[in-house]
C-alpha cells in the first residue's frame, strides 16, 4: 500500500488538488467561502514588489523617452545636446507634474459631486490573466474600503470592488464578462445591464425590443443596483441591432472610461457598509 502511494504520489496529489480546487470553487459559488487565508498573505507579499515594479516601469519609460529624444540629434554639438536633454527632462517632469495635478484636481472636483465618504486610490497592479479584467488598488479596508464599493473616475464608471484586504483591494472592471451595471438611456430612460464580453467589447443586455435606443445615446447608472450612485456616465451606445426574433435588442456600448489608462480612481458607496454577518 505504502509502495503504491509512493509510486503514484504525484498523480494522487494532482487529483487531490483538482478536487480541492473544485471544492473551493463550489464553496465560493455558493458564497460559503467566508475566509481566504492565502489571498491576503499573497496580496501583502506582492504589494511592495508591485509598487517597486511600477516605479521601475516609470523609470524605464522615462529612459525610453530620453533615448527617443536623443535619437535624431546626433549631428548637434555636445553642449547643445546636454542642454536639450536637461530641458527635455525638465519639461517631462513639469508635464508629468502638470498632468498629475490636472488629474488630481479633476478627481477632487468630481469627488465633491459624489456622496460623502469617497476615497481616492492608486492602481498598483493589473490582471494576471487575459480572461479577467481587473486591477489591484493600493488601499484596503484600513482606509475605509469594503467589498461592493463602486469604482469611478471623473469620466465615468470603472467597476466595483470584489475583494478587499487591509492594505489592498481587487476591482472587477466593467469590461469583465462577469460584471454588470444597471443602466438607463439618458434620453429615453430605457433600462438594461451593461456587461463586458470577450467577443465584441461591452454590451447592454436585456434592452427590450420595444425600447427607444439609438446610436450615440448616453448611458448612465440607474442607481437601482445599490452599488453605483445614480446618474454616473457609463458610456454611449455604439451599435444597435434588432433581430427578427427574440425579446431583446443587441446593443454595443462604447465605454466612457478606458480602464487601461487609469492611474487613480475614486471609490464611492451607494450605502455605508453594514455590520459583518
Amino acid at each position: 500500500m505504502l509502495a503504491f502511494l509512493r509510486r503514484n504520489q504525484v498523480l494522487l496529489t494532482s487529483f487531490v488538488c483538482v478536487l480541492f480546487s473544485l471544492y473551493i470553487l463550489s464553496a465560493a459559488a455558493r458564497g460559503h467561502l467566508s475566509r481566504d487565508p492565502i489571498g491576503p498573505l499573497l496580496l501583502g507579499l506582492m504589494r511592495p514588489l508591485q509598487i517597486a515594479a511600477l516605479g521601475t516601469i516609470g523609470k524605464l519609460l522615462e529612459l525610453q523617452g530620453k533615448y527617443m529624444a536623443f535619437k535624431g540629434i546626433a549631428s548637434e554639438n555636445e553642449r547643445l545636446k546636454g542642454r536639450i536633454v536637461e530641458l527635455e527632462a525638465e519639461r517631462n517632469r513639469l508635464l508629468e507634474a502638470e498632468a498629475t495635478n490636472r488629474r488630481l484636481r479633476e478627481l477632487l472636483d468630481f469627488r465633491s459631486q459624489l456622496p460623502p465618504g469617497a476615497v481616492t486610490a492608486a492602481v498598483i497592479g493589473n490582471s494576471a490573466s487575459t480572461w479577467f479584467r481587473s486591477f489591484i488598488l493600493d488601499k484596503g479596508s484600513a482606509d475605509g474600503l469594503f467589498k461592493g464599493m463602486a469604482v469611478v473616475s471623473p469620466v465615468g464608471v470603472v467597476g466595483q470592488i470584489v475583494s478587499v484586504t487591509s492594505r489592498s483591494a481587487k476591482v472587477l472592471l466593467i469590461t469583465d464578462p462577469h460584471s454588470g451595471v444597471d443602466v438607463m438611456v439618458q434620453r429615453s430612460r430605457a433600462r438594461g445591464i451593461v456587461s463586458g464580453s470577450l467577443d465584441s467589447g461591452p454590451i447592454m443586455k436585456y434592452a427590450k425590443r420595444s425600447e427607444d435606443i439609438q446610436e450615440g445615446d448616453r448611458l448612465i447608472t440607474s442607481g437601482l443596483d445599490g452599488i453605483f450612485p445614480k446618474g454616473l456616465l457609463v458610456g454611449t451606445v455604439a451599435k444597435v441591432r434588432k433581430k427578427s426574433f427574440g425579446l431583446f435588442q443587441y446593443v454595443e456600448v462604447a465605454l466612457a472610461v478606458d480602464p487601461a489608462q487609469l492611474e487613480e480612481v475614486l471609490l464611492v458607496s451607494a450605502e455605508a457598509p453594514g455590520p459583518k454577518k
Partner: protein
Amino acid sequence: MKLSLLFLLVGFLVVLLQTTFLHLLPLGPIVPDLILVLCVYWGLNHPTVGAVLGSFLLGYSVDVFSSPVLGLNAFAMSLVFLAVYLSSRCIWIHSPLLSSAVVFFASWIKGAALILVGTLFFAVEGLWIGVLKYIFLEALAAAILAPVVFALLRRGQSLLEEVRMPL
C-alpha cells in the same frame, strides 16, 4: 532544497511580471501566460509533489489577483499539470518545438477548463462567444515564449544540480 527555493522565486517573479511588466507588451488585452508555461515545465521536467502544489498555488494566486471567484484558475492549473504529467509519461518531449506545442495545447486545456467551470458553476452568459480567438491568441503567445522560459529554467535547474553533485 535550493531547487525548491529557485522555483518559489521564479513563481513569485512570474506572478509579478504578469501583473505589471507584461501589460506593457503591445498585445492588446492578451497577457502572455508565463504561469501556464511554468506549470507545463514542472509537469514535463520536474514532476514532484512540490510542483503539483506549486501549480495549484500559482493558479490560486491568479485567482487572488484577477478572478472574481477563488478556485477557477487553481482548478485550471492543477488540471493542466495533471494532463501534462500524464502525457509526459507516454511521450518523451525534449525539443523546444515540441515544448512549444505542449504549451499551446495546455493553453487550450486551460481555456476549456475555465469555460466549463464558468458555465457549470456561474452560468456566465455568452462566455463561449468569441472565446476561441482569445484562447488561440493566448496559446500562441505562451507557445512563442515557452522555449525561452524552458531554456532559462533548465539552465537554472542544471546549475543547481551541478552544485549538488559530490566532487
